[in-house]
């Protein structure tokens, strides 16, 4: 299942709600807005997305993960809107009878979300806000999964 929402999510509740007859392994990943490194003050950010297309792309990657690994259940939640440092941005939970499938599917989804999820980031700065340009170097981790296909 995938959800694109502005509200926060409850990691424990989402993990407890995973359903399947033979779940032995639950892997999860939460991505958060990082705080300042080296004490520099970091402001909030705003994530914009393309309603409709974002859900479609997330559903496609979820289907891809389910086709590659024997998952009992799979959940991706991605937030949009204004987020402050320390806030949760994204959640992936994968459930399988085997730990390897759960861990690998979770890492696969996270790599895709980190590099390819259709969101645009607006950073609040002291001198006014700014749209953040794409990071070219992020494509590598996602490409490694293509090679394994």
């Amino acid at each position, binding site marked *: 299942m995938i959800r694109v929402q502005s509200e926060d999510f409850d990691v424990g509740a989402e993990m407890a709600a995973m359903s399947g007859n033979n779940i032995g392994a639950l892997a999860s990943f939460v991505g958060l807005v990082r705080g300042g490194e080296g004490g520099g003050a970091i402001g909030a950010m705003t994530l914009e997305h393309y309603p409709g297309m974002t859900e479609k792309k997330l559903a496609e990657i979820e289907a891809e993960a389910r086709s590659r690994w024997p998952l009992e259940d799979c959940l991706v939640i991605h937030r949009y809107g204004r987020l402050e440092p320390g806030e949760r941005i994204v959640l992936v939970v994968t459930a399988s009878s085997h730990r390897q499938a759960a861990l690998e599917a979770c890492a696969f989804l996270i790599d895709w979300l*980190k590099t390819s999820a259709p969101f*645009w980031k607006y950073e609040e700065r002291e001198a006014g806000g700014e749209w953040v340009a794409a990071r070219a170097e992020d494509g590598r981790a996602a490409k490694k999964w293509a090679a394994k296909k």
Partner: protein
Amino acid sequence: MKLLYFSWLKQKIGTGEEDITLPGDVATVGALVDWLKGRGPGYAEALADLSVVRFAVNQDFAGLDHGLADGDEVAFFPPVTGGLW
């Protein structure tokens, strides 16, 4: 035809969404880009460097040569930011 603009394209063009009637001689995304650039300085600036613009037709990624029909939903946006966390 519905046009959507995201991120700084929306900022430069001054709107996030508009409805247009597709001119008869505009048959591809590339031709639509050229036609839009003639609509005003905001469009021209937003679409000046297409290496930092991506396109979607009916919510699927599309190239400049992708064909268009009236009733399509066409979106313009930068490459996804990535590295959000």
